[in-house]
């Protein structure tokens, strides 16, 4: 097995284009376990974490650009990123895992329980996919097509995550339910971004997304539609919580049951809404 550690993005894309049966490695927190267990090893590994252009969080007038090889620790600690994304990143694994893992890895691994995915859907993020001779921008809510499946082609990499300034101007939060506080995988996670009409409590726009409750992270648009242009009273939030419950299709698995997931997501929704509207 060969190991490539390019430092320039163009070299990375060329190697990816040339190599057959290769795998991209970022932090490796999932891939290294896979490599230990599998007999189907790739012929080469291409490490993206030495490419400086893929690391860092940049704020510009149009919004924020996050390099895909930025570590989860750095996402969680960044004070220029929206709360929901920071909290989602902070709830992943342990300090040891967050120091290794990257946001690009969390996205491209496309696990339905990835804790940065629902926040990125709620923030209407776009993903820049690049290959040696093309690039395209894919909205987060069109990127995931199934558990561990994305629209990415084998010669493409995710290079940037972009959040437009419109979604930096608003309030957001993320909460998840796991079996303990540290080192845990979400049984249910929920990210909400909203903006109120200036100096009122009327919701101007709201985006609600959930993870671990469907084959991909999902938007819950029916609840969004109910809340839009209204003052969120306790009764209205309760009504919306029911739409959140009916907007997901969880399964029973090793971590939890479908019934439990449907129950707790209503509580998570009410908690986040109350927190956001009281602050």
């Amino acid at each position: 097995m060969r190991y490539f550690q390019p430092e320039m993005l163009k070299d990375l894309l060329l190697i990816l284009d040339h190599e057959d049966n290769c795998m991209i490695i970022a932090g490796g927190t999932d891939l290294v376990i896979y490599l230990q267990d599998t007999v189907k090893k790739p012929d080469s590994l291409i490490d993206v974490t030495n490419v400086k252009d893929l690391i860092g969080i940049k704020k510009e007038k149009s919004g924020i650009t996050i390099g895909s090889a930025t570590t989860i620790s750095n996402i969680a600690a960044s004070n220029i990123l929206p709360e929901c994304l920071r909290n989602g990143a902070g709830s992943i694994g342990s300090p040891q895992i967050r120091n290794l893992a990257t946001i690009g890895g969390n996205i491209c691994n496309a696990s339905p329980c990835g804790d940065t995915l629902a926040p990125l859907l709620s923030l209407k993020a776009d993903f820049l996919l690049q290959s040696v001779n093309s690039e395209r921008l894919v909205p987060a809510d069109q990127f995931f097509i199934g558990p561990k499946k994305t629209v990415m082609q084998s010669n493409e990499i995710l290079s940037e995550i972009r959040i437009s300034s419109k979604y930096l101007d608003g309030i957001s939060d993320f909460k998840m339910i796991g079996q303990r506080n540290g080192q845990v995988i979400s049984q249910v996670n929920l990210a909400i971004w909203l903006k109120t009409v200036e100096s009122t409590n009327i919701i101007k726009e709201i985006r609600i997304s959930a993870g671990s409750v469907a084959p991909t992270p999902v938007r819950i648009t029916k609840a969004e539609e109910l809340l839009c242009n209204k003052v969120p009273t306790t009764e209205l939030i309760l009504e919306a919580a029911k739409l959140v419950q009916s907007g997901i299709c969880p399964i029973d698995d090793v971590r939890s049951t479908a019934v439990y997931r449907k129950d707790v997501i209503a509580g998570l929704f009410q908690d986040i809404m109350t927190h956001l509207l009281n602050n």
Partner: protein
Amino acid sequence: MLIEFICNGQPIEVDVPADMRALDLIRDELGLTGTKCGCSKGECGACTILVNGLPECSCLLLAPKLQGRKITTIEGLEGPGRKLHPIQEAFLEEGAVQCGFCTPGMILSTKALLDRCPSPTVAEIEEGLSGNICRCTGYTKIVKAVQSAALKLNGTNL
């Protein structure tokens, strides 16, 4: 592939397979068996090492990623004349060690925490050690040991 890195202050040059874990390199090739192999899935923290000062699971870290890095294992904490590090002393004094298997990882996570946050609250200690599992102590004495280590280190620095 040939990699070069600094381990506990010593330059190392070694040829490693592309899919070798840092954990196996450290234990089997460098003979530094203080780094423990627990779950091999990044869940227990027994294999924690410091990479450029940050705690990472060496079971999830491929050896080629050590290229150009500085790592510290538990063996690197000793001072001259094999004098124990103040964190190690505090763990012994507080009885924070029972079977000892988790201890190297606990101590390195503590080192990273105290380097970043010299006087942590209990909540900060719990967060800093949240990636290290101990099946013996119930954590109370470990938290006390971290507080005691913080006092020792802050005293030394005054």
